[in-house]
């Protein structure tokens, strides 16, 4: 089983459009949307929900005003400034439980936190594991880990060859959680200075965790000089540039129609994505 996770560092470079197309091209796979903050893959894959599960993770402190003597110790010791006027700000509370251990009046209890939901769905491209983190919640990394675990379970049960994951932007907690132990990172970049800067950082994260990476330059023709810079950088880093996808409004049109672009058009965008899949899958 091969687990391919699509990352980019910078947001909006085309991860979800590419994953949607790989979903249409690959056989024997399970799909995973690891961007639990702002999941979009379902908009292309039109899932039929089969299973919805609550995701309880972390805790939030709660002060019982009847027991609280307003001694102020919790406020002094909380390093996250989550307690003011003897009330807990649930958004700032990191669930460390320190206050609940030290309250002399035993007025503080920790409450389990419903931080989101995860789903198993059917799509016409195969099973999809996805999730929704609650608004302003923590622990996105743990929810990502849950999505991956479920995807792996499905792949094993059904003897599927691939897990294809749509990753989150950035390089922090949910990215590390999406990446660790994967077989391959597909890094989608764009030829902008921001895109290059962010590619360098996300490639460093892949190196840090020992995950092999290939690069895809999306919208390569919006600045061909920058695209050559990316190619030069990748050559130096020993990373393959597996595809160069041209800019085309057809990609947006396909998103508006809610279909993967490879099913919407036979143009150059589609042929590059097909080339990309051949290169990754070795077929």
């Amino acid at each position: 089983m091969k687990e391919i996770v699509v990352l980019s560092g910078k947001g909006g470079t085309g991860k979800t459009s590419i994953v949607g197309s790989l979903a249409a091209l690959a056989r024997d796979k399970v799909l995973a949307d690891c961007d639990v903050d702002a999941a979009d893959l379902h908009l292309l894959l039109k899932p039929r929900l089969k299973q919805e599960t609550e995701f309880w993770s972390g805790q939030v402190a709660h002060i019982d005003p009847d027991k609280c003597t307003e001694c102020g110790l919790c406020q002094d010791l909380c390093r996250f400034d989550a307690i003011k006027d003897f009330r807990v700000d649930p958004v700032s509370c990191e669930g460390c439980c320190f206050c609940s251990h030290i309250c002399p009046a035993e007025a503080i209890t920790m409450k389990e936190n419903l931080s989101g939901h995860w789903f198993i769905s059917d799509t016409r491209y195969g099973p999809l594991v996805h999730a929704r983190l609650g608004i302003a919640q923590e622990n996105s990394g743990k929810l990502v880990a849950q999505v991956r675990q479920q995807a792996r379970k499905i792949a094993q049960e059904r003897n599927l060859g691939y897990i294809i994951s749509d990753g989150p932007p950035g390089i922090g907690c949910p990215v590390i959680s999406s990446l660790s132990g994967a077989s391959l990172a597909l890094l989608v970049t764009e030829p902008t200075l921001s895109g290059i800067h962010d590619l360098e950082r996300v490639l460093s994260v892949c190196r840090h965790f020992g995950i092999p990476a290939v690069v895809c330059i999306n919208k390569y023709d919006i600045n061909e000089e920058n695209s050559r810079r990316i190619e030069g950088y990748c050559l130096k880093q020993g990373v393959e540039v597996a595809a160069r996808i041209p800019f085309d409004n057809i990609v947006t049109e396909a998103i508006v129609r809610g279909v993967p672009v490879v099913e919407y058009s036979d143009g150059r965008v589609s042929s590059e994505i097909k080339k990309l899949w051949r290169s990754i899958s070795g077929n």
Partner: protein
Amino acid sequence: MIISVASGKGGTGKTLVATSLALSLKDSHKVTLLDCDVEEPNAHVFLKPAITSSEPVLIPVPKIDEEKCTRCGKCAEVCAYNAIAVLGEHVLTFPQLCHGCGACSYLCPEKAISEEPRETGVVEMGQADGLEFIHGKLTVGEAMAPPIIRRVKQQGNNEGTVIIDIPPGTSCPVVEAVKGSDFCILVTEPTPFGLNDLILAVETMRELDIPCGVVLNRAGVGDAKVEEYCLKENIPVLLTIPLDTEIARLYSKGIPLVEGMPQWKDSFGQLFESIEEIVDERNRSLKR
């Protein structure tokens, strides 16, 4: 006034809007730009600031004095992040999991735990073209962005106009970066992805009780559903930026929009005036 620029979806043009807004105001206001997208900071690519000072961001992590430690296991029991484990005669710490809450050292009955700083990122300060500039960078391989974001915000003195470039998404880094703002600009694009993530961002701002308005970028592609949603939800569309190859070309080269196309300065000035009006009106109604 503190104005955040957020989006839900990545790559919609947050940094374009934040940098152009800051540059449009700098002649008439004291402006500080905080780049709180510490995982992938990009504002410096456009503003090219002269960095004058930098400070490491340090998280206090436990250090066990093996001589004093009795392996009682209290520290492992109280750690909510599984960053300490007692295995037989050994106490193992996992600094990467530690949030630096301080519970273990405070609660150790033998006073065998001290704290030592661990660097997880850096905050850099400087000036760019008449702007105060501060950004943070999470060290590669580190997971936790919020401590870096907190430090970036602490470095800003909140005088004059503060513009904050927010990371994408809706989870803890966004909340940390956006809280305390007087207003949040939500940058989106007219596609189903843009709309889906705009709705999540609007819900986040409502949860945090921060008034918001929309900047619609790459207008002309996609569909009209973002505008329909904004109308229905009574969210003002404050500025529309068309899909334009010249704008995309400037962006790709790291040139701020208002520098490459100065005619946009007035539009960003008006964007600021609209925000001022909304914030003033809200403050008046809160006082009543």
